[in-house]
């Protein structure tokens, strides 16, 4: 009413203008809201777009720091830091028909000439197929791996569509060396077979993969072992070979080889057949190499006290079975002679006197009834005769028949026998001084020191003479066992083993060399037994690895065998 009076006072023309003004202001305000709504809508669209873009971008772009700075998979090295397996960016040759822009001809030159030039760089490529792929404009690999200098040559062709992206590869710089220890990496990026499988989580863990994992392997020892095994295998045309070098005090495996090897850098059908690990996965009846274990158990139990005592060496008759020696050794033998000549009959009588319970317990203490103690995933289960051993079986197990174990079982048992009597699990990891497991006592210290004498005598005067590398004080025992086949033992197929340790005055390393189905050749004087094929391998290997491992040859030092020498006529010649 205040306004009304004013309006009236101002006259009708003014009133009309005021009305127009009020109306247009009200309408403008309404329309202003439309403008505001429009801007809000546009901003909303922009924000929604940003959210979608962000959801996309998070997945597609940006290199995580871990990926940029760390290897895709951790390195594996030997105990001295020599790389055994590493991540390696390799070039590949990729054809990208869209590189020149969509709808453009993918190649500058004609497919025929580009194919010819590529063929000139890579003579093993099929030029016809290459031409077809280039002409069809199909994206794809032209070649999976190319060398850097070849990548440069491809680049010099000036074809933008020929791309050479780098891809992370698992590279084994040592080639086939220690292939069974390392294993390989499958297409899914997970490790297979060897330590690649065991350490898979560790090698892929971003927090730890920058640090290489050292194995217990010493690459120089591994190389020597494989070299000698291969040579020995070829000399006697054996099917395969296995070898191991084990630290007797820590259980670290310094070398482990199963021959023939595969190449983890190039996996193919042939390689796949060779991936079986003879050292840890294949079980063998290892024959006479078991005899020292039986004797050690007998000494430990007090069954063998007098090394001058003569044991009956005539064939043993148990029921309808007869145990013979491979050749007649006389009517009686003492214990040192029995080991030197590898007498089955005396071992059977010692085992019989020891009894199955005590022999069995020693075998169990040595881990013979379980898979071998090592990290590798491929571990064979022994053929173990069960709880109740009949008398005959007890006798045959005494000389290594009727129980089948892996070469690694034997190596660990020998380590326990010579290191003072402590059994320790074998390991592929490099152990720091404080990490050595305590182990378990299997033999007395005194038994162990007796066994050093006996093994040394065997390799000096007995079947192991071919392994006696001068100055290295090798002590060891041969074993030649017929392989079981359909319908009993095969006379033609044998497994010959030499199990040794050196230096015998203070044993440091156990060395096992095993040949699968060796033949009699001129190199082995037409003999098939371990004395002629496996023992020489050890004899050549020890001088190669001894200096590397800190064992110097010394003719003036040896284990004291003066108390046993008078008992053995052969030693006095």
């Amino acid at each position, binding site marked *: 009413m205040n306004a009304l009076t004013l309006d009236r006072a101002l006259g009708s023309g003014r009133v009309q203008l005021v009305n127009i003004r009020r109306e247009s202001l009200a309408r403008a*305000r309404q329309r202003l809201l439309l403008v505001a709504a429009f801007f809000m809508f546009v*901003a909303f669209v*922009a924000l929604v*777009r940003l959210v979608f*873009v*962000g959801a996309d971008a998070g997945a597609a772009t*940006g290199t995580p720091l871990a990926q940029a700075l760390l290897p895709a998979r951790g390195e594996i090295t030997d105990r001295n830091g020599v790389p055994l397996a590493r991540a390696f960016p390799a070039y590949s040759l990729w054809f990208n028909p869209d590189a020149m*822009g969509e709808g453009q001809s993918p190649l500058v030159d004609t497919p025929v000439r580009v194919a010819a030039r590529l063929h000139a760089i890579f003579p093993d490529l099929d030029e016809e197929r290459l031409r077809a792929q280039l002409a069809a404009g199909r994206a794809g690999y032209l070649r999976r791996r190319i060398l850097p200098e070849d990548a440069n040559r491809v680049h010099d062709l000036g074809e933008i569509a020929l791309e050479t992206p780098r891809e992370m590869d698992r590279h084994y710089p040592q080639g086939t060396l220690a292939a069974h220890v390392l294993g390989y990496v499958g297409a899914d990026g997970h490790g297979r077979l060897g330590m690649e499988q065991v350490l898979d989580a560790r090698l892929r863990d971003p927090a730890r993969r920058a640090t290489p994992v050292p194995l217990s392997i010493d690459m120089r020892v591994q190389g020597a072992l494989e070299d000698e095994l291969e040579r020995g295998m070829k000399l006697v045309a054996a099917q395969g070979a296995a070898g191991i070098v084990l630290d007797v005090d820590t259980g670290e495996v310094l070398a482990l080889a199963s021959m023939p090897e595969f190449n983890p850098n190039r996996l193919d059908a042939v390689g796949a057949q060779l991936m079986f690990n003879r050292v840890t996965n294949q079980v063998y009846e290892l024959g006479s190499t078991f005899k020292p274990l039986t004797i050690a158990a007998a000494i430990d139990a007090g069954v063998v006290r007098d090394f001058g005592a003569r044991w009956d060496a005539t064939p043993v008759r148990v029921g309808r079975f007869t145990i013979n020696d491979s050749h007649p050794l006389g009517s009686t033998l003492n214990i040192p002679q029995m080991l030197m000549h590898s007498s089955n009959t005396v071992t059977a009588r010692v085992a019989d006197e020891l009894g199955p319970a005590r022999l069995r317990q020693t075998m169990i203490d040595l881990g013979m009834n379980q898979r071998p103690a090592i990290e590798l995933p491929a571990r064979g289960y022994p053929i173990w005769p069960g709880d109740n051993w009949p008398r005959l079986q007890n006798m045959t197990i005494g000389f290594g028949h009727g129980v089948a174990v892996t070469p690694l079982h034997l190596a660990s048992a020998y380590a326990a026998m010579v290191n003072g009597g402590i059994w320790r699990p074998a390991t592929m990891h490099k152990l720091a001084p404080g990490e050595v497991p305590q182990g378990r006592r299997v033999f007395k210290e005194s038994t162990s020191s007796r066994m050093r004498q006996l093994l040394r005598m065997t390799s000096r005067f007995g079947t192991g003479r071919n392994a006696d590398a001068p100055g290295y004080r090798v002590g060891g025992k041969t074993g030649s066992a017929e392989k079981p086949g359909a319908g009993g033992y095969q006379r033609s197929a044998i497994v010959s083993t030499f199990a040794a340790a050196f230096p015998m005055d203070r044993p440091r390393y156990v060395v096992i060399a095993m040949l699968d189905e060796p033949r009699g050749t001129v190199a082995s004087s037409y003999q098939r037994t371990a004395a002629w094929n496996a023992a020489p391998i050890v004899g050549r290997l020890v001088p190669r690895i001894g200096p590397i491992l800190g064992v110097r040859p010394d003719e003036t030092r040896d284990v004291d065998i003066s108390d046993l020498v008078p008992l053995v006529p052969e030693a006095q010649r």
Partner: protein
Amino acid sequence: MSMAGVNGRTPGARGDSRAASPADRLKAELRIWWREIDRPLLLLVLLLMGIGTVAVAAASPASARRLSTSDVALSDLHFFWQHLVWQTLGLGTLLLVSLLPRTSARRIAVLMAGVMSVCLLLVPLIGVEVNGAHRWLNFGIRFQPSEFLKPAFAVALAWVLSWRLRETDLPVIQATMAFTAVVIALLMMQPDLGSAVIFAGVCGVLLLLAGVPLARLGVLLAAGAGLLLAAYVFYDNARSRIDAFLGGGSAYDQVDLAWRTLLAGGWTGTGFWLGTRKLSLPEAHTDYIFSVIGEEFGLLICAMVVVLYLVIVLRALMRAFDADDLFTMLASTGLTAVLGGQAFINILVNLKLFPSKGMTLPLVSYGGSSTIAICLTVGLLLSISRRNPHLSRTTPGLARLFGLDSRVTTPPRRLAAVASIHRDADR
């Protein structure tokens, strides 16, 4: 209290201040300015300019390396230092213009509209070619008349349209449209499609507010679409840009490079000066600075920039909503449309939602005369939206405006509104 406010602005009060010393007078003017200015808007604008300073510092190395020649090697921060100089000048312009009373601001803007229109006419005759477009004039200093015409155009159009309140039968709508058509035609000759879209948009918004029936605006919109189609058919620049937008373009055109730059940083960005994609981006410091922000500071900061622009636009429109005369409302909305239109078109281009326009991000991008022009726009907006805070007006709430609130409330301070009519009539 309201009467006191009105009295505070009476000539008598001014006479008192005129009697004081010049320093005191300036002080009094500044105090009035500080009370009347839209302080939140000023703060938001300063914040955005701060973001612009950092963003240009981020983008400067990319552009400096790209534009360095064998003769002239630009230092990495060349554009950053230049930008600081221009921003200082711009800020001065902004504050100076915002100090003007509304009437003076209007007069200056209308005068400038006239001058710049003439300059725009001169561009085809004596224009300088830069990057293949005739947009520049060189009178000692080089500038784009269209940049300065934008704010002046909005104010002038608002002024012309507000004549209707006094002479209802003036053909202001037709005059406005004719003027706009001439300006757009001149811009198309340059060619400058982006600015043409802005002018058309500002004209459309002002006509909308001036009360042109929505149906007729729809016809205009259809005509605009037809014009765009014609541009596509007859106009090479537009065709190539629209083609590139629709067809995706080649893998190495600007939009695609900008897109990859935007994506490179993810949500949180690579970090300041750690971006690498920006180095392959042309116009990193101007047209595609939004993408550079995306790479180095992340998409979250991009979203913040979008929200900041929206808040500025809404703040300015709210202020216009409260205005009690048509000219203020129209001019404020027109200037807001110039600012917001450029900003959102640039952002949508960077987000691949709009064809590439060759338009900078106002207040953020590097620019010489364009920074001054944008600051002038904001200064005019601040000046025109100046309002005596003691003179609180009653504006109908939203519910009343849409007839949802049936309560009749008598506006308590009618007198104030009437008093302002008197002042309007005096002009």
